[in-house]
């Protein structure tokens, strides 16, 4: 899986009159995790969305393996997984159906793989239930199963432990630890520190 380094050079982002990101820069090699913290409105989500290529910074660049990601955004997107505040799930589909469509759009996935991933996050007994009947924590677990199934080198996670119980938070730590062990990278915006199972993490605090 190790493919490249994520580098961020002097990133400046404005939202209207607000200067949200002020010269953010860091380099993240394979096998490293960056924990981004800061007060509400400090720009954590904006940073993740800029790293994804969903938002265009006024100044600065995001480099993947030394190349500006804007040169081939589609290829870069094929190497990242972004999990926002809310899991990208359809309320009227079951947990399993959701994963089948979500992951299937990106790569071929068979039923066995889906079931294994859902079992890993403790969803075996409720995988056929409609997502509208699941709790926020269960939905987050389904999203984590999707994240693991995507098998991409870069994970961009926005508050990955939200709504999860202690066991679920531990699971997030384990998944991050496994991603790093494979040589992948993780950038996670957090309000509380990532679980210890994630291993050693670098920290970036955004000014409020």
């Amino acid at each position: 899986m190790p493919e490249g380094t994520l580098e961020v050079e002097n990133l400046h982002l404005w939202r209207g009159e607000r200067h949200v990101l002020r010269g953010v820069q860091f380099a993240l090699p394979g096998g490293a995790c960056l924990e981004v913290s800061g007060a509400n409105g400090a720009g954590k989500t904006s940073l993740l969305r800029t790293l994804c290529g969903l938002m265009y910074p006024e100044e600065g660049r995001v480099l993947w393996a030394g190349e500006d990601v804007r040169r081939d955004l589609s290829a870069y997107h094929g190497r990242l997984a972004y999990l926002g505040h809310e899991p990208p799930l359809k309320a009227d589909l079951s947990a399993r159906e959701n994963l089948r469509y979500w992951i299937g759009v990106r790569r071929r996935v068979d039923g066995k793989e889906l079931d294994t991933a859902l079992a890993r996050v403790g969803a075996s007994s409720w995988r056929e239930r409609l997502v509208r009947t699941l709790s926020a924590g269960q939905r987050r677990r389904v999203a984590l199963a999707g994240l693991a199934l995507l098998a991409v080198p870069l994970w961009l996670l926005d508050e990955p432990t939200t709504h999860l119980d202690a066991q679920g938070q531990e699971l997030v730590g384990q998944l991050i630890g496994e991603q790093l062990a494979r040589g992948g990278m993780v950038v996670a915006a957090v309000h509380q520190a990532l679980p210890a199972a994630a291993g050693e993490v670098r920290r970036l605090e955004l000014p409020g």
Partner: protein
Amino acid sequence: MSLDAAWLALLRDLQLAFRKRGQLVQPLAFFAMVTMLFPLAISPELSRLRSIAPGVLWVAALLASLLALEFLFRDDAYDGTLEQYALSGRSLTGLMFAKTVAHWLLTGLPLTLMAPLAALSLGAPAASIPGILAAVAAGTVALSLIGSIGAALTLGIKRSGALLSLLILPLSLPVLIFGARATQLAINGSPLLPPLELLAALAVLAVTLAPLAAAAAVRISLE
């Protein structure tokens, strides 16, 4: 692989639509009601109904198709599906096209199948049905695709229905004009090829350009 992605996006929308049947029935019920109310409001006299049938059919089809457009991308925008599509590394244009095909299958196709019944109830002769079917099929394809641009452009706007209509109605006028003309010629038993060809050309143009425009608009709305 991009084809697989588009196929799955299409399947997902179809499966979701069949789980939320209320939304599915709304445009059809609207179309049926409008076409049935006209004879009650104007006159049951067949010759009179026959002369207004093309206009009634096409205005009802246009408004029914508009009714369903608001939902085309809205739920996907709220639950993060559009974001995932944009970040999938697959062609967003292809995925938008797949979604619009699903929309046509769920609204345009049923409207096409219902149009002959509505036409017959408005006094159209049975011989005009093949022509009406062809015109409504091509016209609703164009309407769905043109509508997808408006739906994508108004994604970030709350209560976007009115704005969507303002954006889409002027662009849909050629479809309305050629569609009504083709239907009128079919009812009169005259050759209807010229307006039908123009409708087909509009549909082809929309197939070529609308998914590109919709994908660009979705990208802007995600920023």
